């Protein structure tokens, strides 16, 4: 959730060639049981989220299927449960299990999209900044600095407000995911930019780049080809950790009421809704999505963790 830009692990990893499918890495992966479990959990959650429309018992977005008369049915195993609803229902009569599967889909979509957006933007600006240098570099890095002044939550709050002002007349359900993606992604690009910029500056002065320039190959392309593989390791680490952060940020924004609308809830929205029912004993409305979110983020974080250590050549 907080800016991770300044974590020196990344700086340490920066500029070092990380052989992605290195056999050492593969070994360390297999050796670490926790990592294997985390990878399996992540895969299972992601696949079931992806397959939600086919495996979910109900369609929680189809209003005609939802009946308010089914509201707040407890999960199977408790008194008054209903076998149709394995994990119970929420306050609108939506099946919790289906809601969680679809919600995870939205959370992951926001997560992946915003990370992709941040990575593309960050890598491009980083390359540009490191390669061109001078005034361009100064301007981009100054923008990065301004960006850091506004933490993700603040940026998202403001962008959501602006989006509401601009798109207020349009269908919010359709825009919410993109607005979230944009505002979360916007707060993450700096880390990629700085990492890539550092590598670029190192590579720029190497002889082969000079040579390429002499024989007329556009040096920007050379940079792209040589710098990018170098920074893939750190970028992947940043991306993994950012994925976890993005999912949490989305949940937090939903808690503050600026996330996706309640008719198409993400995990965060489900928790926000369920939060209102914690004291009244209908714990399943908040706890199940909360648990799913925690497990998902934990698994992704563990993967990121392992990756960071594995890709750091100093620690082998």
């Amino acid at each position: 959730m907080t800016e991770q830009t300044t974590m020196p692990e990344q700086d340490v990893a920066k500029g070092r060639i990380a052989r992605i499918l290195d056999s050492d890495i593969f070994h360390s992966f297999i050796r670490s049981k926790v990592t294997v479990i985390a990878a399996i959990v992540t895969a299972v959650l992601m696949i079931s989220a992806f397959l939600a429309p086919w495996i979910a018992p109900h369609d929680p977005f189809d209003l005609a299927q939802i009946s308010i008369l089914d509201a707040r049915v407890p999960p199977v195993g408790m008194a008054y449960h209903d076998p149709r609803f394995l994990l119970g229902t929420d306050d609108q009569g939506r099946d919790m299990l289906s809601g969680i599967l679809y919600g995870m889909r939205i959370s992951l979509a926001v997560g992946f999209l915003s990370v992709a957006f941040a990575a593309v933007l960050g890598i491009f600006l980083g390359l540009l900044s490191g390669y061109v240098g001078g005034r361009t570099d100064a301007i981009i890095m100054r923008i990065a600095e301004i960006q850091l002044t506004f933490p993700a939550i603040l940026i998202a709050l403001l962008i959501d407000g602006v989006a509401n002002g601009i798109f207020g007349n349009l269908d919010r359900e359709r825009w919410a995911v993109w607005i979230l993606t944009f505002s979360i992604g916007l707060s993450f690009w700096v880390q990629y930019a700085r990492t890539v910029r550092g590598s670029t500056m190192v590579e720029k002065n190497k002889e082969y780049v000079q040579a390429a320039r002499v024989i007329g190959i556009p040096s920007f392309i050379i940079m792209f080809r040589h710098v990018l593989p170098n920074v893939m390791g750190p970028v992947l680490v940043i991306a993994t950790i950012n994925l976890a952060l993005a999912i949490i940020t989305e949940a937090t924004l939903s808690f503050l009421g600026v996330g996706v609308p309640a008719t198409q809830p993400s995990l965060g929205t489900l928790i926000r809704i369920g939060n209102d029912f914690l004291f009244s004993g209908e714990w399943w409305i908040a706890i199940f999505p909360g648990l799913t979110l925690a497990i998902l983020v934990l698994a992704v974080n563990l993967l990121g963790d392992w990756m960071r250590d594995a890709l750091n050549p100093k620690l082998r």
Partner: protein
Amino acid sequence: MFGFISRRLVMAVVVMFVVALISFMLFRFVGDPINQMVGIETTPEQREALRERLGLNDPIIIQFARFIMGALQFDFGNSYQFKQPVAELIAKRLPATLELSFVSALFALVVGVPMGVYTGLNRHSPLSKLFLTVSLIGVSLPTFFIGILLIFLFSVHLQWLPSFGRGDVVAIGDWWTTGFLTLSGLKALILPSITLGLFQMTLIMRLIRAEMLEVIRTDYIKFARARGLPDRSIHFVHALKNTMVPVITITGLQLGSIIAFAIITETVFQWPGMGLLFLQAVQNVDIPIMAAYLMLTAFIFVVINLAVDILYVVIDPRLRTERSGL
């Protein structure tokens, strides 16, 4: 040296100006403040008159100039909701946020540093793995959810700690109020500080761990070891000292995030600080408060950044080129 600092200073001013411009532009879109100021029965004519008096109908450039002129004199106008000068409101709320941030930073350091040292030195011990995993759970749950669970457990269920507010506060001087001097004030600090500090704690722990892992492999430590210095002295005097520079830097830079993150913690615990004020301002489209808050956050961040930059140059002039990007 002087040239470098003055260049950074100019940059800081530019940054502040841009922040002011961006926040000002954003506010044009967040909603109509008039709706929040008046009751539902106010007629369109009255609304229009009010709009005119507030200067909301003036060209944007004039509104912006007015905003900048005011900001330079620490005058952000009056809050639409509270009818009080924003500077005064924020000054009153500042102690609450700063005390909370301070205690959570302290918590993060006091718990995070030893855990980081331990996990760094004993990389493969089961306890290290446990620390790492548990700390990951801390960052895998959203802050608001942690806060609510803490309230549920410690306030409602066990009834040990208060669920909201600062408890009894003692005024020191004209504008500072502290919760450090009363029992209820100290008790009220516990849950919000843990909620807010958990993330930083994890960050610091992992940072120290990573630094320790690096440092103990350096020739310098190997040399110390070869000289036969006891492990304890090597670990805590030589190794930890070396990790402290980045840690302090990061902690300093994280202060901005702590203050921003206080928005959520303060909302959950009804902590009467700036974050709560800001969120209420967002909900009520209280533009002067939002503007002042953003400017203040930016200012704190720019100052910290500037201080870090200057410090680095003072310590090691060679870093000048490398750090110029930060």
